[in-house]
């Protein structure tokens, strides 16, 4: 159905030509779901844009052939391509809210596509658009027709994007990271929906993702891409159990899954012996009846509804939940950037909840409680070099200066594995993993005792995530840190944490030792979360 031969795409940039895709070939049969897996910059999205001929300015198909049911996609006229897009091949994208026109009713956006391809007239467009909404299982479709994207949840927006893509019954659906940024239960709902629709309509599909586990679960065949080339392709079970290429092996290793240890995320040659961390059964942090209520326009919003928990010295506690469950509010209160409505936070036996967040910066315990932020890029000042970023807390709170400061910065860089020459670079000159290291170095600069990690690896590629998680484990053992690890990824939490708190709607619904909660969840919500997580096939040959 789709044949691609030696496709090469390059971009003209100010620094010359950049080859994004370097001669890839593959076929897609009717009814097949093909997964293209790769990390950022591997050229997987560019491949799909090239097939649709919607490359950004400066991008050209330099060589190769691509044909769809006999149509030459590379040479077809723009008018023909317009008929193919949406009617024969259509796409769904990541970040569904941004993928919809923010100021146009979703129903009208569906109508636009229907009428463009002559599937509806002015008279019956509304009915057909509502039918398209019902096809993607949107409840109360007639009411949703008049909604704007900002009034809908992320999962709902992705269904709308699906409705637009499927409105004209295309034969091929390209899904470009369709669930990145969505909650894990929403991810499952959207992926199940997409799979069912594809099966029911006998469509083919290409699923582009960075998540090998997700691809393995939903695809018939997987293609692993790196630097614009296909390094391996085959059956998902086979790729997982016996990856041939070194890169796919690395990728498989780095994908967190059941029954693995944190070190096994790394390639075998980098697996150093794990230094065990010591947990003292003395409480470092005791939270009692913590409540945070915001005054909303339509009455009070209960972000956190009286939660209590305890973190022992040296212990790592995972805080798991979906967006809106109150986990970010909780971490912001604990790091004392936000004042709770009521409740106590005993840190080392003393209440710190009573100190207003604005004055906590002057408190001697400010240095003891630090935070690593979710987005390594956004949490670094773009005008500060890595050295200045790390120096900031040392200078402001530690009162250091001169050669002592310089020595401490280099010591920290060595500790987090940041090469010294990179210290004078600015954030935009650093890779994602390097930025994460800078963020961690800044957080541990003052020898804190308690570190809050707010999804520190959410924006990172899996192989980088593996390295950063291992770094965190090593730091914990070396510095005797206690962690509160906030995450939505249960596999990651299991690898890193001793104890798990599961949060839903501002309350803790389940807590217990990590291995117990993961293997024998008692609360239905925990079970739902675990069931929704993609389950990659196990590796048959477990590496040492």
């Amino acid at each position, binding site marked *: 159905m789709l044949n691609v031969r030696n496709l090469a795409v390059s971009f003209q940039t100010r620094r010359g030509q950049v080859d994004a895709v370097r001669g890839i070939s593959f076929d897609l049969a009717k009814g097949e779901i093909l997964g293209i897996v790769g990390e950022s910059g591997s050229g997987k999205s560019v491949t799909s844009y090239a097939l649709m001929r919607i490359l950004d300015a400066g991008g050209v198909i330099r060589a190769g052939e691509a044909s769809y049911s006999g149509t030459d996609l590379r040479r077809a006229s723009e008018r023909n391509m*317009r008929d193919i897009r949406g009617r024969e091949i259509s796409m769904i994208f990541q970040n569904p809210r941004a*993928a919809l*026109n*923010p100021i146009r009713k979703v129903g009208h956006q569906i109508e636009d596509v229907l009428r*463009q*391809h002559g599937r509806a007239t002015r008279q019956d467009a509304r009915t057909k658009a509502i039918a398209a909404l019902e096809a993607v299982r949107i409840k109360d479709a007639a009411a949703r027709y008049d909604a*704007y994207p900002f*009034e809908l949840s992320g999962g709902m927006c992705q269904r709308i994007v699906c409705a637009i*893509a499927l409105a004209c019954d295309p034969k091929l659906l390209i899904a470009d990271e369709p669930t990145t940024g969505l909650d894990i239960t929403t991810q499952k709902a959207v992926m199940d929906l997409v799979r069912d629709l594809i099966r029911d309509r006998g469509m083919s599909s290409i699923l582009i993702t960075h998540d090998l586990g997700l691809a393995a679960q939903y695809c018939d065949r997987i293609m692993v891409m790196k630097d614009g080339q296909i390094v391996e392709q085959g059956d998902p079970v086979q790729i997982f159990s016996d990856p041939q290429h070194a890169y796919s092996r690395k990728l498989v290793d780095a994908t967190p899954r059941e029954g693995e240890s944190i070190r096994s995320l790394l390639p075998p040659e980098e697996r150093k012996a794990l230094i065990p961390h010591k947990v003292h059964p003395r409480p470092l942090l005791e939270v009692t009846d913590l409540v945070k209520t915001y005054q909303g326009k339509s009455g009070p919003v209960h972000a956190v509804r009286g939660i209590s928990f305890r973190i022992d010295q040296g212990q790592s506690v995972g805080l798991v939940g979906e967006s809106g469950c109150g986990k970010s509010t909780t971490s912001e209160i604990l790091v004392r950037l936000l004042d709770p409505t009521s409740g106590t936070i005993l840190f080392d036996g003393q209440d710190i909840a009573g100190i207003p967040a604005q004055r906590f910066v002057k408190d001697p315990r400010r240095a003891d409680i630090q935070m690593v932020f979710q987005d390594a890029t956004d949490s670094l000042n773009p005008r500060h070099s890595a050295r200045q970023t790390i120096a900031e807390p040392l200078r402001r709170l530690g009162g250091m200066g001169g050669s002592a400061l310089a020595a401490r910065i280099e010591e920290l860089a060595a500790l987090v594995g940041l090469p010294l020459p990179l210290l004078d670079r600015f954030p935009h000159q650093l890779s994602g993993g390097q930025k994460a290291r800078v963020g961690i170095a800044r957080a541990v600069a003052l020898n804190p005792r308690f570190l809050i990690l707010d999804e520190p690896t959410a924006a990172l590629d899996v192989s980088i995530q593996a390295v950063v998680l291992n770094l965190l484990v090593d730091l914990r053992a070396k510095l005797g840190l206690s962690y509160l690890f906030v995450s939505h990824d249960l596999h990651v939490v299991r690898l890193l944490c001793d104890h798990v708190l599961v949060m839903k709607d501002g309350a803790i619904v389940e807590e217990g030792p990590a291995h117990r909660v993961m293997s024998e969840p008692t609360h239905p919500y925990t079970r739902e979360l675990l069931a929704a997580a993609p389950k990659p096939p196990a590796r048959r040959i477990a590496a040492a």
Partner: protein
Amino acid sequence: MLRTHPRLRAVLLRCAQAIPVVVGVVVISFVLTRALPGDPAVYFAGVMADEASIQETRVAMGLDKPLPQQFLIYVGELMRGDLGQSLTSGRAVATDLANRLPASLELTLTALLLACAIAIPLGVLAATRPGTWVDHLCRVIVTAGVSLPTFFTGIVLIYVFYYLLGIAPSPLGRLDFIYLEPEHVTGFYLIDAAIAGDWETWWGAAKQLILPAGTLALFTLAPVARMTRAAMLTALSSDFIRTARAAGLSRSRVLYGYAFRNALLPVVTTLGMVFSFALGANVLVEKVFAWPGIGSYAVEALVVSDYAAVQGFVLAMALLFVLLNLVIDLLYTAIDPRIGFDSK
């Protein structure tokens, strides 16, 4: 009703917010004119006046009373629509403004329409073809527009079109003396002449208008074109444009239905700002073209400390700005459905 229509409520709320602004404007315009240097009593008593006659003038003008009392009198008169007498023209300030404000508005609005008609398509074209000759042309026009002062372009235009080519009529006011003023309905000659069906006069007024409006348009065109280009570039690189393209929508639909409507918000903001500084820049253009507008009136009144006239001018302009901001905010609500829900 209001609870169920959050947008209607937002609109009404926005209108209500204009009221305290108007009150503030009245206070400030009063205080500001009193703070001006110079004693109007001395000026109006004449060159030959002695102490006694100056004092007499002062009492006659009500300037001997304490400021709060003067203010109360002023507000009371304002309520009755009385803006006082202009001491220079000898007519009621309200009449003067009613005569001159339409002249300024006609000039400014025509200039803005002209500027939009050129700048918006130019900006859109430049954004869709970055790096091509259209883009460069846009840049040249924009740079020229901002860097040439209005009095200079005005004089150059007069020199070329009136003196050298002889196409334009003499730059003296709104209408050549061979035409009769159209009957006063709105005060906008073009509209009044059209209502009267007097196309000869309409054409005469249009000919007088084109050079000053062109001068002002050249000046206001630059920010509008730049903003259109930038906003279109941002909109075109958005994710939803890619979705629209991937769905096979036609180029014009993507460009105008999707990108342009999203780019409109910053353009409308810029238009509001441009309109306000165009009203200010008017003074020079009015002087060059002997245009009987509100700007030249204010300058003349200011020179002789004509309190009532200056106060009336400041008040009229301020009210105009309040109205303008209101219109722009309401336009936002019309363009962007997100507004009205976010506002507190």
